[in-house]
């Protein structure tokens, strides 16, 4: 008879990391449902106000339901914080962001591949969501919502949402009167917001599978032309987010092309808004907006400590599959579920319904690291065309060559 070691999996934490953000690690407690010791992990997010509060409540619920502890922390500039802390071996085990950093961060070695350890089968999520959380065969996050832009209309000014661009233009025409502070459309013109049209005629920004640019393809340019011809004339001349948002929020524009995050402001400004899918151009073209998938990333910090990893995984699994949480998110904040059980149930709130139609049409933003280099030159090119400084074709050819030179 000897003394048996009861706990061989977890070693007492020596805080070898120099005291990170994750606080105290608790040692083994054997009697809980899942095997392994209880862990505490930090979750970084950049949510504000109500969304932040909801996340905190969810974390509390998780902590009380399980042996693990989730510790959400609001970060002012998540990108800067993650890129400086994680490489230094610091930072949170998990953070909350859209899927567009997946490739870049994974390549930089910020993220941890949890594909082997996850209990949940990715097939419970919608197809685009599955794609979003994976890169290079690794699963680095779990998805909980999708997001994209749709058409938001002021119900006081528009009776029926337009089906086609032509219909929309005629309504915009009717309202557009900049001299008196009235505009036809509120539409922040950045690359993400514009993607629906660039993709509408078969064009594309970036082909992830072949690592190829499609900016100067005629079909892509048609999409840009559509924006320039049909939307730009009805917008305030400053196409930044805030000035565009302002005209709709003040009730001075019948339409806004924007995402679910906009609805909070719309509501608090007392605007009665309806949500519809984006109108179609002539012919059989359909707007195909980029969609983003909101997800919980696992950082390399989880590799240091199995208890922490288990806690993080368990929270992610719980959060992304708990229908209460998800439907509440959908109702309150317009988060479009990607958990199939809910996404396909058909009883989504009205607001989500409108956006989820757009999502259905859309394609996820490529998570390839090269995508990060595309946005800037694309917007520069579009702006110079819009300002009349350059020709469409040549501007985007130049953008492509800029991007390629940066890829090298």
């Amino acid at each position: 008879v000897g003394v048996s070691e009861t706990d061989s999996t977890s070693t007492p934490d020596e805080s070898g990391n120099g005291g990170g953000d994750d606080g105290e690690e608790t040692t083994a407690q054997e009697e809980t449902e899942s095997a392994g010791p209880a862990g505490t992990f930090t979750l970084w997010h950049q949510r504000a106000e109500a969304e932040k509060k909801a996340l905190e409540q969810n974390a509390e619920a998780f902590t009380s339901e399980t042996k693990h502890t989730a510790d959400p922390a609001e970060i002012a500039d998540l990108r800067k914080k993650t890129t400086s802390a994680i490489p230094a071996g610091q930072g949170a085990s998990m953070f909350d962001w859209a899927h567009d950093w997946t490739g870049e961060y994974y390549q930089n070695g910020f993220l941890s591949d949890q594909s082997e350890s996850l209990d949940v089968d990715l097939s419970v999520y919608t197809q685009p969501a599955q794609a979003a959380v994976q890169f290079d065969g690794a699963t680095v996050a779990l998805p909980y919502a999708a997001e994209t832009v749709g058409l938001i209309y002021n119900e006081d000014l528009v009776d029926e949402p337009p089906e086609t661009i032509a219909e929309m233009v005629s309504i915009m025409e009717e309202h557009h009167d900049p001299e008196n502070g009235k505009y036809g459309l509120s539409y922040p013109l950045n690359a993400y917001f514009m993607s629906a049209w660039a993709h509408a005629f078969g064009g594309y920004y970036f082909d992830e599978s072949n690592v190829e640019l499609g900016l100067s393809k005629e079909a892509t340019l048609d999409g840009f032309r559509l924006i320039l011809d049909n939307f730009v004339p009805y917008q305030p001349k400053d196409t930044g987010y805030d000035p565009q948002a302002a005209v709709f929020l003040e009730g001075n524009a019948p339409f806004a092309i924007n995402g679910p995050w906009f609805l909070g402001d719309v509501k608090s400004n007392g605007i009665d808004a309806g949500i519809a899918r984006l109108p179609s151009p002539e012919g059989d073209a359909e707007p195909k907006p980029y969609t983003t998938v909101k997800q919980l990333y696992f950082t390399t910090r989880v590799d240091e400590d199995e208890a922490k990893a288990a806690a993080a995984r368990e929270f992610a699994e719980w959060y992304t599959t708990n229908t209460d949480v998800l439907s509440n998110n959908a109702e309150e904040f317009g988060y479009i579920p990607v958990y199939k059980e809910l996404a396909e149930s058909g009883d989504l709130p009205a607001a989500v319904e409108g956006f989820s139609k757009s999502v259905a049409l859309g394609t996820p933003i490529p998570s390839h690291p090269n995508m990060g280099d595309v946005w800037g030159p694309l917007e520069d090119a579009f702006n110079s065309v819009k300002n009349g400084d350059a020709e469409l074709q040549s501007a985007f050819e130049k953008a492509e060559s800029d991007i390629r030179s940066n890829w090298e």
Partner: protein
Amino acid sequence: MSVLSDIAAEVGDDVRTAARAPVESLKDARYTLEGIREGRVSAASVLKTAGITAGAVVVVALLLFPLYWVAVGAFSGTGASLYSSSGIRLWPADPTIEPFLWVVGDLILPSYRITMGLGGYELFVQTPELAFLDVSDYGVTETSNFKAFFVNSLTVAIPTVILAMCLIVPGAYALSRRQFIGRSKVLYGYVLFTQIGGGLGVALLIALYALFVQFGFNDNKLALSAYYAATAVPFNTWLLKTYMDGIPVSYEEAAMMDGAPSWKIVTEIILPLSKAGLATVFIFTFLTGWTEFVVAQTLLSTDNYTLPVGLYSLVGRYSIPWARFSAFALTFAAPIMLIYLFAQRYIEGGLSFGGMEG
């Protein structure tokens, strides 16, 4: 300490003068009017004064208009935007102090029980709960973390100032009053680094962060203070040195003749005489700790956020809640304004670069 009590006395003076200012100017006006009537003062000259003053007011108003515009936004409540498609509003359409209440939150001093042992008996005083402001009275339910950020900012800014002073004052004194090896090199280096300390970019930030982690100092407010103090050293040492250059050497010589040892000369003569310079350095180092964003954001965890980081965390992914953002920023700047208002005469003296005339 006598420096502190001096400053307190002078602040008191300032407050009194400020309070009396309206009365005094009223008296001035009456005397002037009488003067005009009796022909002692020429009306043309009074008109000229009035006209020029009005012109100055217009200039000041123009300069401050952006701030006024922000303030209008802050008082307009939720839904306010920097952009208003319905024209410039010089007055909030529907004035409310809700954003400020949201920023400040409750100001309630909880009741304390102060006890005192007294020969077997125990005396205690139960202080009443002091509610200066209970925002729920105004229908504001949720509030910002301003107070927590404020405390964090103070706990960063105060050690910054203390540490910086400890580093700057001796250095400035030595550079101003003594000749030693490498003096001019240090001076040149400092002048150089007064500016190029910032702007070195992301890579530098990463290196800095790695450095902090190396020593286990990340998320340590004191370490952050040390960093701020370090960055404040070149410019402020140099500034104070320039100021000290203007203090006549004869005071020091007089003290030396009086038999004072060097350190006494510094504490009893040089420091009190450098009050203006010290006040300036104080403000500048305080500002360093108070307004810095990037490094604080990188280094601190959420619980330790300072005000600028707190302010910036109001910025959403796409939009900014303007009313609250503005109210937060204005409240944030208020202590600086107050400090400056009282330190004004010192700062203007402290920046006069007296030693450079020529």
